[in-house]
């Protein structure tokens, strides 16, 4: 089992806190909206990912548990 970050793109307003707290997996595009690295959150970044999810002012992020076998590179 692993976690993947999901972003509700309609909620997201580009505050950018997620990229500050989890730069290993999240970059911002030219307008400040997140670009997410594909795949599950590596074990050693789990705590940072939780903090990034909790910090989002519009609650646009969540962690979704995925079975290792069906991890998707990108959300379909």
């Amino acid at each position, binding site marked *: 089992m692993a976690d993947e970050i999901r972003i*509700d*793109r309609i909620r997201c307003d580009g505050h950018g806190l997620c990229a500050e707290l989890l730069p290993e997996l999240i970059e911002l*595009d*030219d*307008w400040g*909206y997140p*670009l997410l690295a594909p795949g599950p959150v590596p074990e050693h970044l789990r705590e940072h990912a939780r903090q990034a999810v909790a910090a989002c002012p519009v609650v646009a992020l969540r962690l979704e548990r995925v079975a290792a076998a069906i991890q998707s590179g*990108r959300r379909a």
Partner: protein
Amino acid sequence: MRSPVGLLDGPPPAAGAEGLASHEARLGRLPVGSEAQGLIPMLEASGLQGRGGAGFPVGRKWRSVAERSGGRAVVLANGAEGELLSMKDRTLMAARPHLVLDGALLAAEAVGAERIALYVGQEHTAASASLRRAITERGGEVMRRAGVVVAPSGYVSGEATAAVRYLNKGVALPTSTPPRPFEQGVGGRPTLVQNVESLALSALVARFGDAWYREAGRRPAAGPALVTVSGPVARPGVHEIALGTTVSELVAAAGGLQAHVQAALIGGYFGAWLPSEQALALSLDPAALRARGVAFGCGVVAFLPAAVCGVAATADIISYMAAASARQCGPCLFGLRAIAEATGRLAGGTPAPEDLVRISRWSAQLPGRGGCRHPDGAAGLMRSALEVFAEEFSLHQRGACQHGAPQRKAA
């Protein structure tokens, strides 16, 4: 290349709506009760895939609604047809309203739905008038359950969650998923959102069986399909083909090309450009197209004359797509707008340094970053343009054009 029974068999579509008597004389009555019960497995066995653009298997979609419905589901027949290059849904609804209605009634029976909403694009007035008349012709029971809902103009109005939201809240913009419409749709009920051509085909499968459907295609493809051809052909417009037909055969059926063409847009504004020789050799088989990274989409085949600049044609499309954004998600609103502006500068002979490089980067960043697939579709179109018109794009970055002075094609 036509199958023995097709969607547009019978009186010529230009003659207007086929009435109930003619429809039933030609195709027989709608199977009901126990006959209709076996329809979901039959649709699964047929291999019928949705014709709205995404190509999702129809039987599996019906089953997922049926499993949750408890008899309280809703059928939303999608005839919004916001795709500018597509005419097939409005043509089908206008000419064969009873076949569409048959499909919607069978779907309602199979998934356990009471209410049927026929969601028809605002501009498609002949289609909505024809469906309304057809409902009246069916009388009491159908009149009580089914009704036409006029969909507001706009490319995204026909997106499944946007259609559901319009029925719920009067706003035809996509919503975040989950929940998807089959889980929680109109009035919170499990909702089957199904394109009108898919419903009409389901009504033919119910009558003639899944083997008929498979044989109506050209192996390995299955089924007939409506496609819309545009560009310099003798008879542009809607044509019915057996899936698996090649684009060059379709062109022959449309009376042949009347000018040199350089490329074709396959699948519509969500589709991809291909150089014309490659496009003509293509087999219009959704699975084969997918394997080549091309989507059958809603069956659009649009030719670009050799005399028209591919950069200018792409600028027109991408600026339309940017304007059509629901403006709910930043990457789509800002990213698509920036791509459209840069492409417009290139097309108009006023390139900014690095425009081409930035278009390429932004297009690569867009997929998967919207609440719906609008940015994915537009980015795919853009990436295909950069590939097919690569030479022309580099010329434009230097302020030149193979077609004379760079100039935006008049809209």
